[in-house]
């Protein structure tokens, strides 16, 4: 079989697509195509609102953004002042409470990073990232 270089490359590229698609279907529940956060660790604005007092809200945005405006009752906890702000948050947290972390929008990474650190470093269960972040919260408020 003699194929040109481009045709050989194309055939290999196409062949690789088949198991790739199969795997994507198999892993569909374990990874989201929209965001790096798995669906099980996300919460919608409506769902988080329903939790009411059984949830603590964390604002993972920089201090200036928090000072400008934030979800009422939210506590600021960002990576810039992690060591300083974490004890304040832990003082407000109690076992059984869910934690909702948000940053500015769907595309920002801050909430995911803070949520990950809370799970790993502070060993907190039930930490969720707000789907759509602050932008989604504002939209729902309107």
């Amino acid at each position, binding site marked *: 079989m003699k194929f040109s270089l481009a045709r050989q490359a194309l055939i290999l590229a196409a062949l690789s697509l088949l*198991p790739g698609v199969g*795997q994507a279907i198999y892993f569909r529940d374990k990874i989201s195509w929209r965001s790096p956060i798995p669906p099980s660790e996300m919460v919608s604005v409506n769902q988080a609102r329903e939790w009411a007092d059984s949830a603590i809200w964390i604002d993972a945005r920089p201090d200036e953004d928090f000072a400008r405006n934030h979800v009422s009752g939210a506590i600021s906890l960002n990576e810039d002042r992690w060591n300083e702000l974490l004890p304040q948050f832990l003082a407000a947290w109690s076992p059984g409470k869910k934690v909702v972390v948000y940053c500015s929008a769907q595309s920002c990474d801050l909430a995911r990073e803070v949520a990950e650190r809370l799970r790993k470093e502070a060993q907190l269960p039930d930490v969720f990232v707000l789907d759509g972040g602050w932008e989604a919260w504002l939209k729902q408020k309107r």
Partner: protein
Amino acid sequence: MVKSFIWRIVDFILAAVFIYAGVLKALDPVQLAHDVDHYKILPWTIGVGLAFYLPWLEIFCGLALIFRLFYRGALSILTVLVMIFLVATIAAKVRGLDITCGCFGHASQNWSFPTHLALDLAILAALAALCYCSMARARANAWPTRTP
């Protein structure tokens, strides 16, 4: 004869490297998607697509090197992949990003930047040598045989 035997061994070593790397990544595409995302070059959705696709491309290209089927196509794909990866790694380093390449799954998590670079350059050099060898072979086969 000895020369072609040596090149065949290089084929097998490279194939083993890519098949090993591909299998490790195919086992944990979720981690690979995060590793791709750490480079901050591509949108998340494309990174996820690549995480499902690239490992298999490496595996198929590795198999192609072993069985000498679509050989030149495999060599060119792997060369382009390694070059893209090299550029992305250097770009990430320049931008001060702390990345784990994910090239060999968790095994490569603690590799330093110079180790990544040295390995990539060695693979690239081997691929370039195989490309050259393959072209030389093709030229030799195409050479008209002289009749007395």
